[in-house]
């Protein structure tokens, strides 16, 4: 089960080993941990790494290498997200065998990581990042992104920026024997993000990358396969792990908001600062995150707005709200065309209730459905516990006033229990 929050909205599932897959004796990570230059004598790197939690988006040729390296460091938790499965061509660039062909990548890498480090909690999700929800990587200390899907990169960059979670991207350009690693610190609204650095060519590719069906679901499109060699992908994965290690242990100069590029022709490495583009279309607000004492659903929106320090004019007129991965549905309509007020937070794809006239299913009307809901639409609902405004109790809620936002999450019972166990 996922420690990020309450289970229902979390699509990750924990990877567990069978009794015959668990090694009898686990070696201590300290047995092979070097004494890093510049690290104070009193600092135990194994201890720091054993608390590190890393999210993965994309575990193909680059991500799989990085993930196995990190598993060997004995991290606390790995969340692995990848929507694709291994194909026969994957044998050409990825460190897999024929037995892996046809298996979902996230599952396969998750099992490998778990076998390498049984003490690490490993979670896998065999689906697209976009369907994971806002808080999927909220507990990660770092997210490593190694995907060839620009839309997923931009969305992941936006999510990590809001959550203030550092993001690392590893990629290759096969023809020029180039491996790149970018590290975004996501410390403030002035930090750069992946969308800041998109070239006009990449923006065009982004626009043509996805096709939607009538119901709004993305249609499967021809994937953009990695045209590279396995060694170059491995180098990119290795460099990414090196940057993560330096960041986590504070080794050497800062790696934050930098791109490193290694070239196989010149055998040189270049370091370039990543810069914020003022005209970047991403929302650069970094949210503050708080844990509520009990479930978020027990709080009222007014309590959250007040606790967030929003301008209190009695009605919090300048505030807006989000409740979990839902939308606020003002109005719904049935197939017979009977429209009626709904005024509830509804999960995407869910029914908005039943029609009072004919009993048919109410469908949210798109124009009257809001992702972020201004308080003026919530008159009379600010005082009610959030769980009464939803179909399922949410595990997070968000309050925003202009650029400043505060994310509230339910207390993490599972994490607390695990700390206690230690």
């Amino acid at each position: 089960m996922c420690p990020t929050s309450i289970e229902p909205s979390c699509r990750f599932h924990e990877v567990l080993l069978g009794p015959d897959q668990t090694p009898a004796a686990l070696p201590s990570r300290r047995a092979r941990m070097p004494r890093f230059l510049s690290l104070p004598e009193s600092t135990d790197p194994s201890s720091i790494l054993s608390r590190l939690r890393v999210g993965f988006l994309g575990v193909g040729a680059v991500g799989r290498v990085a993930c196995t390296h990190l598993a060997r460091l004995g991290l606390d938790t790995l969340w692995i997200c990848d929507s694709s499965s291994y194909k026969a061509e994957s044998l050409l660039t990825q460190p897999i065998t024929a037995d892996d062909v046809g298996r979902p990548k996230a599952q396969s890498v998750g099992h490998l990581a778990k076998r390498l480090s049984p003490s690490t909690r490993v979670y896998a999700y065999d689906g697209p990042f976009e369907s994971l929800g806002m808080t999927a990587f909220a507990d990660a200390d770092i997210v490593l992104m190694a995907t060839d899907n620009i839309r997923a990169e931009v969305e992941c960059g936006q999510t990590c920026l809001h959550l203030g979670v550092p993001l690392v991207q590893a990629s290759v350009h096969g023809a020029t024997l180039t491996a790149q690693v970018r590290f975004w610190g996501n410390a403030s609204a002035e930090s750069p993000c992946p969308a800041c650095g998109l070239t006009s060519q990449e923006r065009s590719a982004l626009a043509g990358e996805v096709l939607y069906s009538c119901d709004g679901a993305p249609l499967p499109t021809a994937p953009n396969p990695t045209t590279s060699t396995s060694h170059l992908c491995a180098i990119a994965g290795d460099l990414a792990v090196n940057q993560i290690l330096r960041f986590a242990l504070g080794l050497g100069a800062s790696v934050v908001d930098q791109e490193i590029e290694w070239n196989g022709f010149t055998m040189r490495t270049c370091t370039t600062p990543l810069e914020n583009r003022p005209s970047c279309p991403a929302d650069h607000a970094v949210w503050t995150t708080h844990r509520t004492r009990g479930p978020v659903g027990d709080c009222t929106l007014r309590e959250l707005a007040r606790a967030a320090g929003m301008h209190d004019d009695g009605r919090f007129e300048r505030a807006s709200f989000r409740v979990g991965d839902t939308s606020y549905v003002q109005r719904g309509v049935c197939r017979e065309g009977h429209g009626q007020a709904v005024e509830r937070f509804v999960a995407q794809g869910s029914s908005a209730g039943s029609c009072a006239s004919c009993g048919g299913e109410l469908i949210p009307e798109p124009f009257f459905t809001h992702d972020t809901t201004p308080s003026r639409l919530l008159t009379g609902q600010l005082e009610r516990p959030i769980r009464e405004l939803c179909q399922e109790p949410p595990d997070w809620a968000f309050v925003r006033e202009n650029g400043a936002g505060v994310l509230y999450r339910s207390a993490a019972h599972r994490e607390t229990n695990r700390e206690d166990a230690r």
Partner: protein
Amino acid sequence: MRLTDVGRRETNRPGNGLAGLAGVPLGFNRERFLEAAVAVSGGSPAWRRRKAAEARELLALSRLARNRFTIEQLDLSESLRAVIHLHAPVPTRRPGCDELVVLPGALLGLQYRQQALLTPQPGASFIQILEPEGVFLAQVPAEPPYRLCLAPTIPPGTPCKELLLSSYAALTLQTFQIDVGHAAGVFNPVAALWFQDNPGRIPLTHEPFLDTRPAAQEARP
């Protein structure tokens, strides 16, 4: 020597096409209308600026095409939301009735989310036809809610003015998708096949989108 203006006709066309909308004066009523919407605009500073610019362009376009559409409501508090009365021939068919009835206009709900700046969006995620019911087009589902599909994918950052013009073109069948075999599909295959069989019933209009009459005072936004 002094050059004399030989009587260039003053029209409502912006000097630089749609790109010149930012320079079109809104007039008193539309300025106040925009100010009221901007006063309660929410979101990050960049998003507020973008919404204000998009709303201004819509209002400028509504001034130039006042014969074609009017903006009834404008809300910038989160997403950009506008209720737009489009004056154009719109084909409709009542359930269970085979007769095509062409109505003189439609009420559209436009919702432009911040996410539309960043990533490609489904073509049916922007416009809902609020009135009339039973719009009979391949890009509109036969059952409510009546979303209007503008394209399989809308590129990130597409301006609202282009969405509005696409809506006009889609509702009047100036651009349309009647290929039921297309990968993205059509909302209403019956309508697609009907217009394939009855191309003469496509309700075209001779009236241009922009008002070419000399500029005049008008009261409504």
